[in-house]
């Protein structure tokens, strides 16, 4: 009798321990099924919050890089559609297989993604930039780079102009509004994709390593360095001079580069004028082999005033003029690469009117503009 009781108890404990199993299917961009179950969520546990794992982390694991609409079918066959620009911020996948989107919780069975039309026009990724520069300078690409070299000629120097927060959609709007007359004279930008989450540290890690977060491990905002080899490492190992001009702080470890910070010494609330002054001073000393210049102002203005606000437009004009001065001061034979780390979408949150961190068109698409200065 005791033995039977013991066995029954063991069985009960085992059953309770396992919990009900569940499985949902996420349709990948190529149409193949990606199974989402408890193991999937466990593999994403580092990103879990109280509400669960962000649905976007699952979508990204299923190789979705941009979402326009999400269509979720529950176990009863009920189909729900979400405008992802609205729903992304409050969408969670819970351990028990339930998804909670926009305040409603239900068991997911099948998840489909409708991407933005712009996805079809993508010609570049942020991970392609390091291999492109390496090929142009005739040096080795970072050892774990997964990106491919874009078509570009050999160059004596590379000027990498990092326009923080000027995503592809905003770039095209700015172009149409006449806010970027100088950038308009350069080669047409390619439609590029950044990595997820689209924020400066993660994107910078992908830019420098030529690899996705699964390789460089800088998977979220609070990780500021990577052990993975970077373009700056390979360039300095090849004997090249790498100089980085930053704003008042480095957002990501730029090891191997000579670093020049640009604090807001004139107290005018912006570091872009200080970045410009530092960049021109570097060019006067002599163009480095690889020169990285990071303007932060468009991102700052986008967060504070929102994309499209007069203050943000003024900042875009200012950065365009600064780019002109730097490119004009660079020697012929310089490959100029203008790009953004991420975009920006309008929000109405406390203290900010713009933000970025989602798998949405405005955040994920970036311009990648390659021009050879003759």
């Amino acid at each position, binding site marked *: 009798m005791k033995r039977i009781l013991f066995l029954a108890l063991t069985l009960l404990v085992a059953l309770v321990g396992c919990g009900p199993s569940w499985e949902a299917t996420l349709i990948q961009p190529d149409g193949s099924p990606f199974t989402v179950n408890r193991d999937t969520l466990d593999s994403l546990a580092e990103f879990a919050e109280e509400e669960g794992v962000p649905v976007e982390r699952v979508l990204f694991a299923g190789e979705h890089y941009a979402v326009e609409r999400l269509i979720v079918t529950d176990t009863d066959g009920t189909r729900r559609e979400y405008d992802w620009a609205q729903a992304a911020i409050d969408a969670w996948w819970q351990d028990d297989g339930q998804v909670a989107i926009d305040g409603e919780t239900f068991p997911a069975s099948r998840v489909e993604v409708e991407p933005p039309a712009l996805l079809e026009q993508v010609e570049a990724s942020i991970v392609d930039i390091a291999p492109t520069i390496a090929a142009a300078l005739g040096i080795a690409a970072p050892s774990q780079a997964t990106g491919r070299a874009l078509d570009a000629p050999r160059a004596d120097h590379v000027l990498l102009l990092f326009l923080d927060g000027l995503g592809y959609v905003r770039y095209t709007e700015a172009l149409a509004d006449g806010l970027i007359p100088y950038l308009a004279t350069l080669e047409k930008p390619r439609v590029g994709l950044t990595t997820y989450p689209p924020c400066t540290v993660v994107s910078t890690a992908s830019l420098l390593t030529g690899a996705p977060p699964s390789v460089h491990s800088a998977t979220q905002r609070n990780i500021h360095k990577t052990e993975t080899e970077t373009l700056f490492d390979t360039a300095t190992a090849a004997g090249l001079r790498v100089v980085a001009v930053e704003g008042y*702080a*480095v957002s990501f470890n730029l090891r191997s580069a000579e670093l020049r*910070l640009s604090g807001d010494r004139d107290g005018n609330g912006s570091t872009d004028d200080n970045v410009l002054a530092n960049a021109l001073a570097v060019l006067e000393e002599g163009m480095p082999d690889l020169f990285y210049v990071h303007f932060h102002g468009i991102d700052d203005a986008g967060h504070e005033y929102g994309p499209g606000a007069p203050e943000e437009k003024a900042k875009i004009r200012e950065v365009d003029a600064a780019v002109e001065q730097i490119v004009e001061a660079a020697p012929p034979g310089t490959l100029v690469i203008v790009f953004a780390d991420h975009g920006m979408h309008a929000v109405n949150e406390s*203290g900010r009117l713009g933000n970025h961190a989602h798998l949405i068109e405005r955040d994920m698409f970036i311009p990648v503009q390659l021009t050879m200065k003759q």
Partner: protein
Amino acid sequence: MKRIGLVLSIGVVLALLLAGCGGGGAPQVDWELKVTGAVDSPLTLSYADLVGMEQVDLTDVQMEKSTGETELGSWSGAPLDAIFQQAGASANYVSVTAIAADGYAIEISKDELQGAIVALKKGDEWIAEAASEEGKGPIRIVCPQTPGNRWVFQLQELQVNE
């Protein structure tokens, strides 16, 4: 009776051990802080050098985190002014670049450095030993009333800019 004696002696030994741990002796830490840039004599201060300097307490200072939240804390350590005096920092310096061991760096203006210290202790605990500061190195710069991104931990170098 013997048993009571044993319990008592264990109690006394435990009390002594605890008192020894919390007694405030500075830990032995292998760490150096360099002071470079616009200075008469570039300095390299060891952790023990910093412990040996005049210590200042900053009580209930507010740190604004990048998330927008604020945190009150008390810190003690060597005043930046004393460190700069020792290095002969230029009277006309406009800012300081604080560089951390992990590669983080930030330029902090002279105004924002008013009352700043190179902190060795958070509250009563040595930063080097505080669980809340694990992974953050043994010293950090504390700049009262400025956003927390200026409060560089794993501080390795202060570069004075003219």
